[in-house]
C-alpha cells in the first residue's frame, strides 16, 4: 500500500472511530436522548476516540518512513560481499547510491555490477516488506487504540477537557516548529562547517586571499589542492550589495518621501501598489532581466565610453538587485515616515519652514532610527539574494572593488559548489556549508540589530 493511500485509510479509520465513540456516548446516556447525564457532549467522546485512533498511528507512520531507508540500507550493506563492505566510507556511499538508484528503477539494471544488482533486489524486497509491515502495524495500532478508548468511555469521563488538552498540546507543538527550524539550520550548517574546518583552518578560510575550490577528485591529479581563502568572495558580496544599496536607498527613500508628503491621494493610490509589484516579482525574473537586458547594455555603454566592462560585471547585477530592493526600502520608510506625529510637522510649518525643510530637518531625523533599521534589513536581503547573482554575476573570485569587473558572491559559490555531482565530505562540498554558516551568522546579526532598532523606534511614538 503506497504511503499516501495508507494515510487516507488512517483518516477514514479515524472518522469511523468518531462515530463509534459518539454512538457509545449516546448508549451510555441511556434511552430518550438524555445527554445531560454525560459530563461532556457526545461529540467530544467521539472526538476523543478519533484523536486517540489517529494520532499515535500517524506518529508511528512518520517515524517509520523517516528511518526506514536508513535501517534497510544498513541491512543491505551488511549483506554485501566482503571486499565492498570494507571499503572506506565515501566509496561505500557511492555504492549505496548505486544500489538505491537500481532499486528505484532510475538506472539500467544491466549496467550495474552483479553484487550491486543483488543488493538492489534485496533492497527492493526489504522495502516491500517494510511497507506491508507498516500498513499492518499502523492500522492495527489505530484500531486497537480506538477500541481501547471506546471501552473506557463513561458518563463521568471529562472528554471535553481531554480533547482540549490534546488540541492545546498540538497547538504548542506547531508553534515550536519555528524553533526547531532554527535549531535544524544551526545544527546542520555548523556540523558540516566543523567538518570543513578540520580540513581547512578557520583562519585560512576567513582571511585567505585566494579562492579556487575546484578540487580534483583524485589526489594524484594536477592542481589537486584547491584554495579556500574566502576574502575575494566576501569582498564581491560586499561590492554587489553596496551597488544595490546605492541604487535602492536614494530611490526608495525619495519615493517614500514623495508618496507620503507630497503626492495626492489618487496618485498615491496608483503608484504605491505599482511599486509594490516590484517586490512580488520572483527573483529569477530579475536575474533573467539582468543577464539579458542590463548586462549587455552596461557592457555596450562602457564600450562607447572606452571602458573595458566584463560581460558579467558587478555593476549590472548590483543595479538590478537595487531595483529589486527599492520597494522594500520604500514601504518600510513609508511606514516610519507616517509614524512621525503630525504635531512635529505642524511645529516646523509654524516656524515658517518649507515642506522640504520640514522633511529634511524634522521628519527624516525623527524617523531616522526606523529608516536605518529598514536599511539594515535591506542589506541583509541583498547579501542573501541568490538568483540575480547566480544568473548575472561571475564565477571567478577576483579580488577587486572595480564594479566593471566580474566578481562572485557567497550565494553564487554555495550554488555552484552544491549543484551537480557532489562528492560527500569533500572540502569542496563542505565549503558551501562553511559559506552558508557565514551567510547565516551575518544576516542573523543584521536582522537582530535591525529588528531591535525598529522595535525600539516603534515604541518611541506609540
Amino acid at each position, binding site marked *: 500500500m503506497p504511503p499516501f493511500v495508507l494515510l487516507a485509510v488512517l483518516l477514514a479509520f479515524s472518522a469511523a472511530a468518531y462515530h463509534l465513540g459518539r454512538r457509545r456516548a449516546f448508549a451510555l446516556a441511556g434511552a430518550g436522548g438524555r445527554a445531560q447525564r454525560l459530563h461532556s457532549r457526545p461529540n467530544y467522546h467521539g472526538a476523543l476516540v478519533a484523536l486517540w485512533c489517529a494520532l499515535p498511528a500517524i506518529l508511528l507512520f512518520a517515524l517509520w518512513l523517516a528511518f526506514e531507508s536508513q535501517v534497510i540500507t544498513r541491512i543491505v550493506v551488511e549483506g554485501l560481499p566482503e571486499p565492498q563492505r570494507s571499503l572506506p566510507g565515501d566509496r561505500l556511499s557511492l555504492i549505496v547510491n548505486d544500489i538505491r538508484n537500481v532499486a*528505484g528503477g532510475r538506472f539500467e539494471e544491466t549496467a550495474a555490477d552483479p553484487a550491486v544488482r543483488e543488493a538492489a533486489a534485496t533492497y527492493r524486497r526489504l522495502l516491500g516488506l517494510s511497507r506491508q509491515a507498516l500498513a499492518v502495524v499502523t492500522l492495527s495500532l489505530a484500531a486497537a487504540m480506538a477500541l481501547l478508548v471506546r471501552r473506557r468511555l463513561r458518563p463521568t469521563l471529562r472528554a471535553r477537557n481531554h480533547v482540549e488538552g490534546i488540541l492545546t498540546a498540538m497547538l504548542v507543538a506547531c508553534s515550536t516548529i519555528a524553533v526547531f527550524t532554527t535549531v535544524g539550520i544551526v545544527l*546542520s550548517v555548523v556540523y558540516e562547517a566543523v567538518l570543513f574546518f578540520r580540513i581547512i583552518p578557520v583562519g585560512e578560510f576567513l582571511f585567505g586571499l585566494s579562492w579556487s575550490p575546484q578540487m580534483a577528485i583524485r589526489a594524484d591529479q594536477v592542481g589537486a589542492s584547491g584554495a579556500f581563502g574566502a576574502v575575494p568572495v566576501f569582498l564581491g558580496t560586499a561590492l554587489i550589495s553596496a551597488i544595490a544599496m546605492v541604487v535602492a536607498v536614494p530611490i526608495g*527613500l525619495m519615493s517614500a*518621501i514623495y508618496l507620503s508628503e*507630497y503626492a495626492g491621494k489618487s496618485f498615491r493610490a496608483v*503608484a504605491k501598489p505599482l*511599486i509594490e509589484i516590484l517586490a512580488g516579482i520572483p527573483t529569477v*525574473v530579475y536575474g533573467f532581466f539582468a543577464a539579458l537586458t542590463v548586462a549587455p547594455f552596461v557592457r555596450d555603454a562602457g564600450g562607447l565610453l572606452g571602458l573595458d566592462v566584463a560581460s558579467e560585471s558587478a555593476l549590472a547585477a548590483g543595479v538590478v538587485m537595487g531595483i529589486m530592493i527599492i520597494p522594500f526600502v*520604500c514601504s518600510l520608510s513609508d511606514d516610519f515616515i507616517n509614524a512621525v506625529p503630525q504635531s512635529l510637522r505642524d511645529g516646523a510649518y509654524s516656524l515658517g519652514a518649507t515642506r522640504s525643510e520640514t522633511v529634511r530637518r524634522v521628519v527624516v531625523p525623527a524617523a531616522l532610527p526606523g529608516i536605518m533599521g529598514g536599511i539594515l534589513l535591506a542589506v541583509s536581503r541583498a547579501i542573501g539574494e541568490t538568483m540575480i547573482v547566480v544568473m548575472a554575476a561571475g564565477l571567478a573570485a577576483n579580488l577587486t572593488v572595480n564594479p566593471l569587473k566580474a566578481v562572485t558572491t557567497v550565494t553564487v559559490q554555495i550554488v555552484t559548489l552544491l549543484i551537480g555531482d557532489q562528492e560527500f565530505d569533500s572540502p569542496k562540498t563542505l565549503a558551501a556549508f562553511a559559506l552558508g554558516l557565514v551567510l547565516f551568522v551575518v544576516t*542573523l546579526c543584521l536582522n537582530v540589530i535591525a529588528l531591535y532598532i525598529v522595535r525600539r523606534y516603534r515604541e518611541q511614538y506609540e
Partner: protein
Amino acid sequence: MSKTQGHPRAGKTPENSRTIAVVRASLPRRYRSERRFRLLGLAAVVLSLGFLALMFASLLANGVSAFRQTEIRLPVHFDPEVLHAEALAQADYGQLIRASLGRLFPDVEGRRERRELAALVSSAAVYDLRDLVMRDPGVIGQTREVWLKAGADIDMAVKGHFRRDLPEAERRVSDRQFAWLERLAAEGRLEKRFNRTFFTAGDSREPEQAGIWGAVSGSFFTLAVTLMLSFPIGVAAAVYLEEFARKGRITDLIEVNINNLAAVPSIVFGLLGLAVFLNFLHLPRSAPLVGGLVLTLMTLPTIIIAGRSALKSVPPSIREAALGVGASRMQTVLHHVLPLALPGMLTGTIIGMARALGESAPLLMIGMVAFIVEIPKGFTDPATVLPVQIYLWADSPERAFVERTSAAILVLLAFLVVMNAGAIWLRKRFERRW
C-alpha cells in the same frame, strides 16, 4: 519707502527688519530648493515605475512570439516501403520528410544543400509524424498535407530575430534557406500557428520541442505539499501564540525565532533541506515532496505573522461574550474567533504561496534543477518547478530559448497575478471593520 514698512506686523526695530530682509532674500533660494526636492521625489517614483515598465516591456517584446511557432505544411507520402506494419514505432520517419521536401524542391542537388533543406523542418517533427501514424495507421500508402514544426533557427528567422544583412557565414540560416522559406510562404505552406507544444510538453534540448507543462506540474505538486503542511501548522501556531500563550521566556523565544526566520536568506533553507531531508532522512532527490517541505519551513513565518494579525483584529468583545455564556477557551477560539479571522489568514496564506511559487534558490540545493523530460505524476517523481525551469532555459545559448524563457516568465507572472488578485478579492469580500 523701504520694503519693511509695507508690513506693519513685522515690527519696527532695526534688528527685526534686518531679519525680515535676510529671510526675504533667502526665499527664492529656498523655494528653488523646495521645487528641486519635490522634483527629485517625483523622479524617484517615476524611475521605479520606469524600471517596472522596462522589465515588462522587455519580457513582452521577447516572449509573446513564443506562443506561436512556425510550421511548414508538407505533402507527406506515407510510403508503405518505409512504414512496416510490425515496426511502426521504429520506422524512419525522417526519410518521409526528406522525400516530401525533395518533391517540393526537385532542383536541390548535393549533400550540403540537401542537409540545409532538411534542416527547415525540426528534428523533432519525426515524433509528431510517428504519433500521427500510430493513432491512425490507415494513412499508410496515402499522401496527406501535414503541418510540421520548423527547426528552431528557421523559426527564429521567420520571426525576424536573425538579421539578414550579416555575411552569410555568420548567420545560422543561409541565403538558400531564406529563398526556400520565401517560396514556401508564397505557396501558403508557411504559417505561424499556436504553439501547443509549449503548454503540453516537458523540457527538451530542442527549443521547438520544449514546454512548460512538466515544470507547471512540478510546481503544482510542490505547492500542494507546502499548502497541506504550512496552512494547518501556521494557523495552529498563530492561534496558540495569539490566544493561549502566556507571556514568558518561551513565548518570547518562539516569537523572536519566527521574526528572524522570516528574514533568513532562502538559500539557507536549501542548505537545511539538503543536510536534513536528503543526507540525514534520505528522502528522494529532486522530489516535489522535499521541495514542499523546504518551502513549508520558508513560508511558515509569513503565514504565522499574517495569522496573528488577523486574530488580533477580532475584537475582544466576541471572546468575552462566548466566555460569558460558558464556553471554554478552546470552544471560544474554535467556534467564534477562528471563523472570523479565517479570511485574513487565507489572504496571508495565498500571499505566502505566491512567494513560494516564485522561489527557486532553495530548490536548486535539493536537486530540483535536473534536466527532466518526463512530466511528474506524483510527489516523489523527479521534478522541477517553473522558476527553476526559467533559470535552466535562461542558461541555454540558443536564441529560441530566450523567447521561451520570456514566455515562461509571462506564464509564471500570470499565475502570480491570479493568486494575488484572489487574495485581494478575498480581503475586499470578507474584510470586516469592527
